[in-house]
């Protein structure tokens, strides 16, 4: 049972100590990781994935339930507490979707009859359906990404979930987030998407390889987030129209579908 994970400060790219001592993240919390490209977001996620003990280039330490984790937890996939959805958009393994899911289930010590469930949920996130006899390498970016999401949700099913840029590949990001989080899981999500960032309870801001600050989402941001969500839904509709070859009429007005209290809250 994981109640908390903690990150102890390491060093940034210039070798200077990071601007914090320790971050504790508890059960059920969703934390964002934001910052420009190259600022060290993926490296932070890597540190957590491998439960760094001052032995990575950042020198950070990661604790589970306030103590140094058993080395077995770092290496043995059957005991792993951490599932990771990394940035990659394609599979390279030359095997069928079914064989892949069975093999991965074996590695994780899971039931082997998850195949249909994983494929069903992956297909809820993407346009073109994945079939179990398809080869992994022929899947499109969106199909691969959706399968990775469903695999992380059901096969890797772990108390800690690390998500690196789920907004890539044009899959349904909110549904994907729902699939991956919940049930008391600790979720860390690297994102450039303001909507996803504001959906979290806190966000870690990265700069030059180090953690610059930790920012609690304000009430104001939370209500802005709700409005942005409407905008996002509209954008999604238009996107789907464009993708399916439908003409987008001028009468399709954003303003109409906004809730009446919509006002950009950005000016103050």
């Amino acid at each position, binding site marked *: 049972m994981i109640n908390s994970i903690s990150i102890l400060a390491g060093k940034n790219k210039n070798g200077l100590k990071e601007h914090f001592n320790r971050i504790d993240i508890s059960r059920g919390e969703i934390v964002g990781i934001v910052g420009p490209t190259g600022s060290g977001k993926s*490296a932070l996620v*890597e540190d957590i*994935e*491998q439960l760094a003990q001052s*032995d*990575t*280039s950042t020198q950070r330490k990661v604790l589970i339930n306030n103590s140094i984790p058993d080395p077995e937890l770092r*290496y043995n*996939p059957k005991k792993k507490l951490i*599932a*990771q*959805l*990394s940035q*990659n958009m394609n*599979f*390279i*393994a*030359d*095997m069928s979707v079914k064989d*892949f899911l069975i*093999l*991965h289930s*074996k*590695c*994780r010590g899971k039931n082997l009859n998850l195949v249909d469930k994983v494929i069903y949920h992956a297909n809820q996130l993407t346009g073109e359906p994945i079939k179990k006899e398809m080869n992994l390498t022929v899947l499109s970016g969106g199909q691969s990404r959706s399968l*990775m999401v469903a*695999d*992380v949700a059901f*096969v*890797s099913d772990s108390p800690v979930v690390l998500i690196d840029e789920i907004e890539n590949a044009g899959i349904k990001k909110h549904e994907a987030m729902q699939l991956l989080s919940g049930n008391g899981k600790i979720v860390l999500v690297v994102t450039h998407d303001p909507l996803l960032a504001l959906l979290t309870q806190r966000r870690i801001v990265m700069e030059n390889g180090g953690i610059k600050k930790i920012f609690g989402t304000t009430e104001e941001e939370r209500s802005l987030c709700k409005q942005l969500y409407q905008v996002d839904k509209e954008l999604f509709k238009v996107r789907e129209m464009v993708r399916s070859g439908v003409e987008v009429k001028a009468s399709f007005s954003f303003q109409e579908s906004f809730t009446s209290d919509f006002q950009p809250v950005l000016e103050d």
Partner: protein
Amino acid sequence: MNVIIVAGTPGAGKTAVLLHVLKHLKEQNKHISAVKIDCLYTEDHLRFQKEGVPTLLGLSKDMCPDHFTIFNLGEMLEYAQGNNSDILIVETAGLCHRCAPYTINSLGVCVIDATTGPNTPLKVGPFLSTANVVAITKGDIISQAEREIFRERVLEMNPGCRIIETNGLTGKGTVELAGCFSEASDFSYEEEELRHNAPFSICTLCVGETKIHKKNHRGVLRHINGIQEYAGE
């Protein structure tokens, strides 16, 4: 002295990983010598030298680079002793999947590229199955699931090995790998033996025959149907 023999297919990241390891060992004030074996060309030895590590270069030319490595281990040890080194690191060219240049008391390190797909561990043979440590590289390019499958396949081929996920760009895993280097057994040149026999090298092709018609071949020949024969006097 600890002798570390590093094998792996070309481009797997042997040199990149070793450069990080060398830095960590230097920080621990270890005295290291290195040897880089390649076939035709390399500049990797210059990269080791740039890290302040005395490095010998050996080019095997038209000889099997692993045979070449084994024949020259004596010279390499003398070189390292001359430098008062605690650790000798030999990076092999590792070309054919039949090779495993590790000796009983060396630390055998196999560097293997995760992006070559989960069937690779089944194909590469003794340089993986007889290694002490298997350093998996480029895992950041593939999904966690594929990494886990790759790892499982490595363990199928070599259940007793220590697996370290490494990254030649970021240095991930190299602190742990450097730690293994000091744990190697003591090397004794006189008694040392290979863990796995070297590939056969006993036909006329080995001594320069270039004609392909079968009437020209002598020595121990193996046919595609599995039958092996000796042709010659």
